[in-house]
């Protein structure tokens, strides 16, 4: 027998909430590193340039594509929450969550296609 609390797990909207939370957490972990990287410019353009050339590595570019996905999926997931909380209920929330994930994946893919 499935515990009552676990019954909803695996549903599209439960996964959407989990993705929203995990993407937010990942972005919160990334942000200090992002700020430290930009802060390199305090010591001059050359230091920032050295770091940017380090980011030319394929693995780093893939990670950047992942970050673009996380940022977009968190934005769209958050927009969905704001709309649900502030406007009349609309059907098709599962489809909207799926579309948000698909758009995020497409944007991340376009980013990767551009940087490679």
């Amino acid at each position, binding site marked *: 027998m499935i515990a009552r609390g676990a019954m909803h797990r695996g549903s599209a909207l439960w996964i959407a909430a989990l993705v929203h939370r995990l993407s937010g957490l990942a972005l919160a972990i990334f942000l200090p590193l992002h*700020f430290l990287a930009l802060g390199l*410019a305090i010591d001059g353009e050359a230091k920032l*340039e050295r770091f940017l050339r380090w980011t030319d590595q394929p693995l780093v570019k893939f990670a950047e594509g992942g970050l673009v996905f996380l940022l977009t999926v968190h*934005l769209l997931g958050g927009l969905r929450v704001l709309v649900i909380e502030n406007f009349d209920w609309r059907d098709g929330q599962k489809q909207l969550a799926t579309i948000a994930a698909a758009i995020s994946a497409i944007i991340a893919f376009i980013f990767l296609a551009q940087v490679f």
Partner: protein
Amino acid sequence: MNVRLYLWQRATAALMVPLVLVHIAVIFYATRNGMTAADILSRTHGSIMWASYYGLFVAAASIHASIGVRNVLAEWSPLTDRRAGMLAVALGLLLAALGARAVFAVVLS
């Protein structure tokens, strides 16, 4: 999450919707031909517009992220609400300080 934190969380989220959209557009623009420090700094150096935009973004993101992390810690970790709150405040202050330093670095230094 109490009502005050809930309202801050949602207000900063709404504020960041246009900021994130612009940021994503800037990411695509900046990386279109490979990204160089000279390109970035030539756009941002001495720009009051970029200083205001990124300053506001840093403030909103610091508040939004710290409240979000507080909720995660309170719900998913064994920490008490008080401890989760203290860690979240520390994270918010760290993000605000590092973010302000980054804005200073690309706009004013």
